[in-house]
């Protein structure tokens, strides 16, 4: 734990694998930029890895970072909890940042709690928003100014909690993928690269990695402009083919509610919601999805939401912009027909 340090920087953990940055540290830089500007402190990115990471520093600077703390060591080539947490704890101890953010990825959710435990500081998981604000503890007249408001859904998405951490710093949070906007890259930005010692010579790496296999993600929900999702109301694996067909004719990605995934209609890669992917497409079509909070938490930021459900009381209609009350098995074929002919009409008009 470090003392409260108002001059401390805002840091982002720049998760990288195989010499490539994932999307989430870049998303974090957009939020980090906003927070550090508000606090009037530099925005730092912590970049760890083997010998392939040096070129990534420029990408981080172009996306908003002022300082890159770069640590290269063979023991950091592949992510492992112990050496990564050791290096970052030392950096925190030495440079006393006031805020450290991590992506709520499998790596971030393994690393951040380990660091929080070692540093004896607070950590809030899976934040969907971060703000700067003041906090007055109950029964205490002290107002703690300019704290990090760590905002997250809790209790299965039924409440939104704002968490603060005012006495044991740094203030740390993991942030859900896809909820922060990806910043534009600006090649003209300049920044400083600070090369730091790993200090791992005496550290034993406890895990031996026998095999490591990464598969290309076949489903790209986060990047999709249109998503067609099905829920339990689809009624069967065969009926789910209709969802795929509608998606194909719109050039859309296929999503599913947790219920649809649990019922085996579609694989977990497609799951939208609290325990799946958070999406913000231009158009989201929810078919046979009742709209449990866990699902809504992952899609309510969509530009336009269309709900098709046989139950007029389904909560999904309350977040939808457009809706059809009816059996999706009847409605979707009509939709497909209308879209196909509608598209040809538009084309005809353009000629």
């Amino acid at each position, binding site marked *: 734990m470090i003392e409260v340090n108002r001059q401390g920087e805002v840091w982002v953990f720049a998760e990288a694998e195989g010499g490539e940055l994932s999307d989430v540290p870049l998303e974090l830089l957009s939020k980090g930029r906003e927070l550090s500007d508000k606090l009037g402190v530099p925005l730092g990115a912590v970049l760890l890895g083997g010998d392939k990471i040096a070129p990534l520093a420029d990408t981080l600077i172009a996306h908003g970072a002022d300082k890159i703390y770069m640590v290269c060591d063979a023991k950091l080539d592949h992510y492992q*909890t112990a050496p990564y947490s050791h290096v970052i704890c030392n950096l925190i101890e030495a440079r006393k940042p006031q805020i450290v953010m991590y992506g709520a990825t*499998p790596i971030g959710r393994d690393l951040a709690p380990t660091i929080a435990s070692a540093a004896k500081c607070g*950590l809030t998981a899976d934040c969907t928003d971060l703000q700067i604000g003041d906090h007055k503890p109950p029964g205490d007249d002290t107002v703690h100014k300019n704290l990090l408001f760590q905002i997250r859904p809790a209790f*299965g998405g039924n*409440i*939104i909690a704002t968490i*603060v*951490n005012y006495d044991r710093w740094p203030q740390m949070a993991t942030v859900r993928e896809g909820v922060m906007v990806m910043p534009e890259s600006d090649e003209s930005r300049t920044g400083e690269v600070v090369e730091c010692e790993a200090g791992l010579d005496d550290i034993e790496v406890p895990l031996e990695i026998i095999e490591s296999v990464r598969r290309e993600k076949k489903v790209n929900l986060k990047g999709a402009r249109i998503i067609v999702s099905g829920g339990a109301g689809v009624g069967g694996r065969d009926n789910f083919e209709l969802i795929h067909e509608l998606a194909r004719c719109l050039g859309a990605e296929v999503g599913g509610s947790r219920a649809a995934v649990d019922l085996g209609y579609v694989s977990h890669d497609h799951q939208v919601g609290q325990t799946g992917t958070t999406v913000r497409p231009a158009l989201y079509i929810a078919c046979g999805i009742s709209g449990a909070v866990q699902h809504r938490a992952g899609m309510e930021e969509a530009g336009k939401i269309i709900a098709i459900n046989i139950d007029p009381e389904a909560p999904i209609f309350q*977040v939808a912009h457009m809706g*059809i009350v009816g059996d999706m098995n009847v409605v979707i074929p009509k939709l497909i027909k209308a879209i196909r002919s509608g598209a040809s009409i538009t084309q005809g008009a353009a000629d």
Partner: protein
Amino acid sequence: MGYNCVVCVKQVPDTKRITGEAMQEDGTVNRAALPAIFNPEDLNALEEALAIREAHGGTVTAIAMGLPAACEVLREALYRGADRAILITDRRAAASDTLATSYILSCAIGKLQADIVLCGRQAIDGDTAQVGPQLAEKLSIPLITYLEKLDALDGDTITIERNVGNGFEIVRAKLPVLVTVMDTANTPRPPAARRIMKFKKARSCAEIEKMAEGLLMGDYEDYTAELQAGEVEKHCARLEEKGLLIEQWDLDYLEADLSWCGRGGSPTKVHRIQSVVLKGGEYKEYAGDDTGVNELVASLIKDHTIG
């Protein structure tokens, strides 16, 4: 050789089954109306431990931190095959965040000489997935998150396949280790009827005290004249003789540093809680017939959402 497995289990409100009864008029959730259940992924952790005992021998200890009501999940662990159940309960542990919780659990596990500590990946009430990693750090043992499959356990070496989201990794480590277990790792066995018969009367001292005060009268058939007479200790001793006493540890027994426990030991504080209320906005309904569908599609094409 056998392995001593310690499984951390948590009693949680069933946030995934929010039915009409739990929904309040204003669209928020009445938490008290939700049933308390065994955290789902902790069942997977327990199953993994039971499978290790079956294959290699050893013991399975289930440990829960919470109110005396959490004994319900400990009994459930006994029904499913755990050898021993320990409740950590203490008013001074209330309002612990994940850091304080992992500290208290580490004090308890420090007394148990565990070879393998197993936790569910995360609990469905907080979904933080933090206690497992923090507990490993506090115990200074290697952390292996997201266990998908136990590949091998040989002497003091464990080999595990872990699910890293976009693929998998096979890692090897020397015991002791802490693993967090995914819900996809296994199918938890159901409670055994024979064990239910045996352990349904297993109780912790805190429960027995409540029974003696008559507070749990309706819930327990074994509310006896002995208890009515306030003879709690005698009753506890009899349960212990029969192997039916759920051990109960408090912070004094754990020799925990109180400054790291409970609200005071928790760096994270709640600034505000807001209920999620369904947002209402502009909404247009279309008919499910050809006319309605065509109208809807036409409006999407018109504003360039599609086409």
